């Protein structure tokens, strides 16, 4: 049986051992960092988008297995650079393009729209200055 290299950065060694980057059980790694970030609204939204798309009542439009496959196909560099819900929304977009639900062009244009609206009217800080919604 192929031995997988100890160095998590040895991508060629992992390929030759038949081990993919996300498959990390038993690898060397550092102490567990228990600090926690509070979830941003866009992260909660991403979570909800996936749950709606994976609901059998809608087909489902896409499955959790497809989400995972899209994440695994990002490759080692991107996988580790992105946060958990960044990986999710990136994979959701890829799978929806594969399935013909959305096109790259419409996603690109909509991202421009969203950013332009944000620049015109940045969201106000809740609980600050008394002007919250």
């Amino acid at each position, binding site marked *: 049986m192929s031995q997988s290299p100890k160095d998590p950065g040895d991508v060629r060694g992992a390929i030759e051992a038949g081990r993919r980057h996300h498959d990390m059980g038993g690898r060397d790694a550092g102490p567990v960092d228990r600090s*926690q970030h509070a979830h941003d609204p866009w992260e909660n939204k991403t979570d909800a988008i996936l749950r709606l798309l994976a609901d059998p009542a809608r087909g489902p439009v896409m499955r959790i297995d497809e989400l995972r496959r899209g994440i695994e196909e990002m490759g080692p560099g991107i996988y580790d650079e992105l946060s958990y819900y960044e990986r999710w929304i990136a994979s959701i977009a890829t799978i929806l393009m594969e399935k013909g639900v959305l096109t790259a062009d419409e996603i690109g244009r909509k991202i421009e729209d969203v950013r332009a609206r944000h620049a015109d009217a940045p969201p106000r800080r809740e609980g600050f200055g008394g002007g919250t919604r």
Partner: protein
Amino acid sequence: MSPHDGPHDHGAHDHPHPNQPDLEDAPLAYYPAMADAVAELLIEKGVFTADDLRSTIDYMASRTPALGARLAARAWADPAFRARLLADSKAAAAELDIDTGPAPVLVMENTDAVHNVVVCTLCSCYPVFLLGKSPDWYKSRNYRSRVIRSPRAVLAEFGTVIDPAREVRVHDSTADMRYMILPRQPEGTEGWPEDKLAALITRDALIGVCEVTAG
């Protein structure tokens, strides 16, 4: 959860985050913008409605470790319920009007002989309907890599030392099951009311990285 007044609500937040600096004039980061873009397009195309999105966000925000703690506290207080929870968690949880979600949840009981702990080495599968969103450490490379091979060292980082006479059993959540741990009831809490018991039970104890103490 703060009220959401529309699918385009970015909300606001009062904590630092590397992906979205807490500056009102900062440009919207790429992936947060993509999340809004994808949501808006799917609503425009009728895949789901803005109400669907809002209600799903709110429902998932209602899923917290307090639900898992209620189940564990009932199991401590009622041996017949414990047996039903271990045999069929969906049906047992329904007795308390608790939804275990679409994936089957297996409840693993800690005993004087066995301590159980959960990981998903391939992604980050987690019993989100009973415990809410998973903690960042659960999704980290360090936890996913190490707890499978060095469970006692990782548990010690959480302040948990398991007697060598007890088996440590690591559950790798690789496919269609999800796992919740039923912790051992601390000595001296027999006969306590369930809400008082539930208040002792932490998220980390329900994942298996900690035990429950009465202190």
